[in-house]
Every structure is written in structure tokens, then in C-alpha cells.
């Protein structure tokens, strides 16, 4: 439960409320994270927040942070040279081994693009290990698209299909308008031979998972990354429970069939 200190070595403003920080260890570094794991980032005197890894490069942690509360506001206000505490990595990751030799369908909505970014990095690093690669991205508006430069760069590649849709736009947007689930219907995949990784707001993931399964992808091959309140990240604080699951250690990445009935319960 003791954070290790990291220094902000780079900061990029992605969106008005979202920044990406690159962190280097001040002293001892945390163990190497697996794709899809998260860290507890600590803002001195303010608190901790669970933040997925958007990348791990040369020992540097890359975290994309959206300002939604006191802790994330403080973290997002960090500038180069500031120190941030890190505990982790925690939780289950995206299991890319199960996707070996199969088509890979990644569906990301909003900030959900950050936790799936390491999947794209892995696909490019070991491109021949996988079949077709499709990335479907949804956002509220074109202005709210995360990693726009990178998306355009990926879109220019011949070894991945990148489709982007927004919920609403002005005519200057030449791309698709409509919910991200509509992209699933026409994704160029061999459904039975596809593993899908889905990340985004929970309602979006639920509907996206249904669309993916409707397309013919086996339900057990659909993985979601869930979000819950977390204080400890080691199964001691109880906050992240979803039915029998501790999302901090049994998740955040979970197979769709395991959580489908739990997510359907209306907590009214």
C-alpha cells in the first residue's frame, strides 16, 4: 500500500479535460505491467485513483487521465518534473494469447481508447501472430476523439482496419455518425474466429458486447474492461465489488459471459 514515486517526464493535453502523462521512476520502479492492467496513481495529500495503463515504453508508464474529481484534477494538473505516486500494476490484463492466430476486434468508446491502446501496440509489434485487426472507435463528437493523431496514423496503415464514428457532428466531419455498435455490424472479421476486446462507458460496453455476439463472435471471446470505485486495489476495501467479483483483482478485464447478468441488474 506504499506508492513508489515517479516523475512526470512528458505531458500532452489530449482534450480540454484529458491529459496524457509519461512517468519515469524516481528510484525503484514498479514491476512490469501486463497489457490492460492499471495503477493506483497518488496525488500527494489528495488521494489515489485507479488509472489504466495506456502504454509502457522503456520503463516509462503512460497514463491518460480525465478530470472527473479531486484526485484526477490534481493528477491532470501535473507538469513536467512533478512527482506522482504509483502503486501497481494491478488486476487482470487483456489476454492477447487467446487471440493468437485469430482476428482481433477492438471496440473502444470515449476514454476507453486509452486502456486498449496497448493492444494496438502489441498487434503492430507482433503483427504476424494475429489475423485481421479491426479497431472501432466511438466518441461523442469529433472534438472529443482521443489520440486523434495516432488514430489517423493507424488509419493510414494497411494491416489494420480503423473505423471511427461519433454520436453527432457538424458537416465538416466526413466520417461516420451513429452509435459505435453500428460499426460492429459491418466490421470485416471472421466472427467465429475472432476475439473481441471492448472498453468504454459501461452502457456502451454492454450494447457493444451484444452486437459483437450478434455478429457471431463466441461470447467467451468477448472481453470487457470494467470500472468501479477502488480504494485499495488488492481486494481489501470492498468498494469495487460487482456481485462476487472484486473488479480490482478479478478484473478489470473480465469475460463478457461472467459479468453479463451482473451488469444487467438495475441498481434502483
Amino acid at each position, binding site marked *: 500500500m506504499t506508492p513508489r514515486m515517479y516523475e512526470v517526464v512528458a505531458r500532452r493535453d489530449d482534450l480540454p479535460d484529458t491529459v496524457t502523462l509519461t512517468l519515469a521512476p524516481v528510484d525503484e520502479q514498479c514491476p512490469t505491467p501486463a497489457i490492460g492492467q492499471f495503477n493506483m496513481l497518488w496525488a500527494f495529500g489528495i488521494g489515489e485513483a485507479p488509472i489504466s495503463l495506456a502504454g509502457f515504453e522503456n520503463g516509462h508508464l503512460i497514463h491518460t487521465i480525465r478530470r*472527473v474529481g479531486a484526485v484526477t484534477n490534481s493528477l491532470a494538473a501535473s507538469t513536467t518534473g512533478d512527482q506522482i505516486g504509483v502503486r501497481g500494476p494491478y488486476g487482470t490484463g487483456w489476454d492477447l494469447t487467446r487471440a493468437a492466430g485469430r482476428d482481433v476486434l477492438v471496440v473502444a*468508446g*470515449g476514454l476507453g481508447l486509452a486502456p486498449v491502446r496497448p493492444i494496438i501496440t502489441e498487434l503492430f509489434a507482433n503483427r504476424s501472430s494475429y489475423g485481421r485487426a479491426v479497431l472501432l472507435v*466511438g*466518441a*461523442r463528437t469529433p472534438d*472529443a476523439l482521443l489520440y486523434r493523431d495516432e488514430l489517423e496514423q493507424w488509419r493510414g496503415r494497411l494491416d489494420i482496419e480503423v473505423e471511427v*464514428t461519433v*454520436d*453527432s*457532428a*457538424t*458537416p465538416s*466531419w*466526413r*466520417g*461516420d*455518425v*451513429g*452509435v459505435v*455498435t*453500428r460499426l460492429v455490424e*459491418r466490421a470485416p472479421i471472421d466472427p467465429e474466429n475472432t476475439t473481441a476486446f471492448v472498453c*468504454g*462507458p*459501461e*452502457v*456502451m460496453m454492454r*450494447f457493444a458486447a451484444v452486437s459483437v455476439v450478434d455478429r457471431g463472435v463466441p461470447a467467451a471471446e468477448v472481453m470487457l474492461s470494467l*470500472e468501479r470505485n477502488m480504494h485499495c486495489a488488492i481486494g481489501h476495501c470492498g468498494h469495487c465489488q460487482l456481485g462476487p467479483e472484486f473488479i480490482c483483482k478479478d478484473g478489470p478485464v473480465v469475460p463478457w459471459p461472467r459479468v453479463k447478468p451482473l451488469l444487467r441488474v438495475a441498481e434502483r
Partner: protein
Amino acid sequence: MKSISDLLGEHPFFEGLPPEALELISGCGTNVHFDADATIISEDEPADVFYVLRSGRVALEVATPRRGPLVIETVGPGEILGVSWLLPPYRWTFDGRATISTSAVALDAACLRQKCDQDPVLGYEMYKRFAALVRDRLQATRLQLVDFYGNNAS
């Protein structure tokens, strides 16, 4: 060059339709092309045709006084543009504009309605397919209403 009936047969909307039916429907069709930014349909004008999209992308837009035109939805290859021709008063609700170069088969609405009236089996089949399309669009629209990515949604 492919016949209209061949083009319709390749389109997902008409998948599984018997050749005779395709032949019958294609009698109402013509090949059309639109350059980028061309207006294809306009709000409140007669819905006397609908489009079986083969390539390109069409944005459904609504004009707003302060924010200018807003894109509500886009339709693309393998999809259908226009459902207002099905039922009276046969008028378009939105503007439809090609965002990129777009090819389609245009089907004459009056012609097709007449064929459906004459052949209720074909008519029922067509209406079932349009009902599914309208359901899918309605559900997608409802999901847009949920506003997944809004600050107060989760």
C-alpha cells in the same frame, strides 16, 4: 456491366430474395452517382424514391439556426437511404448529403409500392425488411440518446 438486378442481389438488404423478386424490383431501379457534397434528399420534399447504397457515405442532417446543420446519422455501403417513401405522406424528414463520392441504385417509390400492392407476398417481404431496418435505426438512435460519453452517463 452488371444489371440492376445483379447489383441489388449483391446488396445485404436484398439477401435471400428469390431472383424473380429481384427481377421485379429492379424494374423500378436506375443507377445513380453523386459527387461529394451533393444533396440527395431534402427535408419536406416528396419521398418518391429511395437509395440502395453501393459505395460512399450519406449524412442525414437537420438545419439548426444557431449551430448550422447537424449530422444525425450517416449511412454507407450495404445500407439504405430513405424510409419515408413507405407510408403517407411520402415526404422526407431530413436532408441527405453525400459526404464523399457516392453510388447507389435509386428505386422509384411509386413503382415499387404498386408492385408490392399487386404482389402481397413480395410486399410483405419488403415491409418485413424495412421494419427490421427501422427497428435497427430506432435502437441506434435510442443509444445515441443515452449519451454514453456524457459526463453524467456511465
